[in-house]
């Protein structure tokens, strides 16, 4: 039986994933790990299947909130990153402030949002946004700073305005950096949303997890974590697809190898 290399690759990856969960299951059984600490994947799967109809609306809420926060965060990140990447003053002032702010656990900030905006979706979107800005800023600024001046010269000689150069050289050149930061930002967005939901909310995976942990229902907590992870992977896959469309030029290695 012969398989195409592609199919083999896929099977292998799937196999490795399954292997990972199998290992987890067996390790838990072998070391007798209490399900209060680390439930087995099979227990988690059970909960997921049994309670899916209950969990679903929460998952949707979290996904929606995260997505909104992510999009806002990325937009803000690009704007700030471009600012930092193109003005020395902005760099000197904004970077320390941003680094400082980002070194602060967002748990400390969420209460401010909650007290100002009340429990619910707004603080969650805000947290999700705020937490995902920094990686985007850093990568966009770095990408812009490391753009080859030769590429910019192509436009500069035409008398292009700064904005033209940014738009036609800086940003396209920075796309690989941007997409790398999106992967990071997506995961942080989820963390931010759940964080805010944990602090004050009636809906969302964060709430589910808090209630479950209050009930000592650890498998349910992990079911929540699983859903989060799955949604994270889903959003990542989407952004990965877009990335492949838009930055193929930067990854022509495979193209060469095919030749």
């Amino acid at each position: 039986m012969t398989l195409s290399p592609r199919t083999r690759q896929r099977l292998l990856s799937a196999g490795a994933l399954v292997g990972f969960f199998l290992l987890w299951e067996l390790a838990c059984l072998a070391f007798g790990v209490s399900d209060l600490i680390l439930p087995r994947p099979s227990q988690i799967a059970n909960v997921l299947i049994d309670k899916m109809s209950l969990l679903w609306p929460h998952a949707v809420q979290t996904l929606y909130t995260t997505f909104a926060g992510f999009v806002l965060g990325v937009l803000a990140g690009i704007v700030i990153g471009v600012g930092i990447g193109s003005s020395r003053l902005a760099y000197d002032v904004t970077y320390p402030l941003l680094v400082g702010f980002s070194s602060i656990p967002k748990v400390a900030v969420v209460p401010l949002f909650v007290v100002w905006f009340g429990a619910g979706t707004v603080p969650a979107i805000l947290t999700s946004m705020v937490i995902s800005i920094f990686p985007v800023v850093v990568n966009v600024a770095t990408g812009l700073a490391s753009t080859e001046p030769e590429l910019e010269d192509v436009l500069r000689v035409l008398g292009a305005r700064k904005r033209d150069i940014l738009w036609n050289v800086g940003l396209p050149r920075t796309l690989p950096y941007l997409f790398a930061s999106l992967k990071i930002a997506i995961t942080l967005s989820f963390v931010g949303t759940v964080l805010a939901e944990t602090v004050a909310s009636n809906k969302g995976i964060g709430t589910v997890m808090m209630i479950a942990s209050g009930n000592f229902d650890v498998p349910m907590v992990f079911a929540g974590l699983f859903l989060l992870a799955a949604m994270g992977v889903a959003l990542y896959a989407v952004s990965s697809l877009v990335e492949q469309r838009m930055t193929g030029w930067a990854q022509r290695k495979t193209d060469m190898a095919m030749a």
Partner: protein
Amino acid sequence: MGNAYIQLSDVMLRYGGGTIALDHTTLGIDEGDFVALVGPSGCGKSTILKLVAGLLRPSAGAVIAGGREVGAAGTLPGGGAHASQAPRLRIGLAFQNPTMLPWLTIRDNVMIPLKIVEPFRQHFGKKKHGDYKDRVEALLAQVGLKGFGDKRPWQLSGGMLQRASLCRALVHDPELLLLDEPFGALDQFTREELWDIMQTLWMDRRPTVLLVTHDLRESAYLANRICVMSSRPGRILETREVGFARPRTLESSYAPEFATLVQQLRMRIADARRDGDATPPAAATATAASLEEVAA
């Protein structure tokens, strides 16, 4: 000091690393002239082109292009206060190393000037799939790249890239054309074809052209004047008028006067290389005065 269309007046250029590429360099080019710049490798030819294009700022002296001072010496980056009010020249520059933006197709790369430079810019949205595309395709076909518009830069050979880069320099009908060894990576035949294209274009539209080349036949074939540069720091050692009638043809390039001119230039550069950095500025100016003319 002169006051030509393009004027470098006693220019010094020190690069970040400390290298002094040009020193006391003076060069004037009249509007509509076709000037070739020849000289030993590393003498500062590309540097002169970048100065004229406004990509570099002289460390001392002044560079004027089209009546407008290009980055006065010592002005801060972005400080446009010193710049005169004359409108910016429409420049076409073919870099020595054909830098194409890797995320664009060859067609889109060639189209860049139409996207940026007025008056093309204002119609870009409307015409990029129509008129402008046709214009680019026609140019590409002329240099033998028909059908390569959809390729990416790394899918072209070195010579093909160089030709695409030439198209990009020409596409927006520039008033000032700066060409840095534009035919260096081409075989003799492709090269000679492109000479004719260049000559026709110059005779039709009369842009001011500054051509850097190592091919003395090329300089004699195309230019009205040939400036010979010294070794680094580069100064203009000598300027030769080239009086051959136009249009020049390949046959005319086998004429004895042509061969004589090329041979004389060769000798001059040999001298320049031998003197190298040692030549003091005064001596250089003296030599530059002893112009010889070759009549057609």
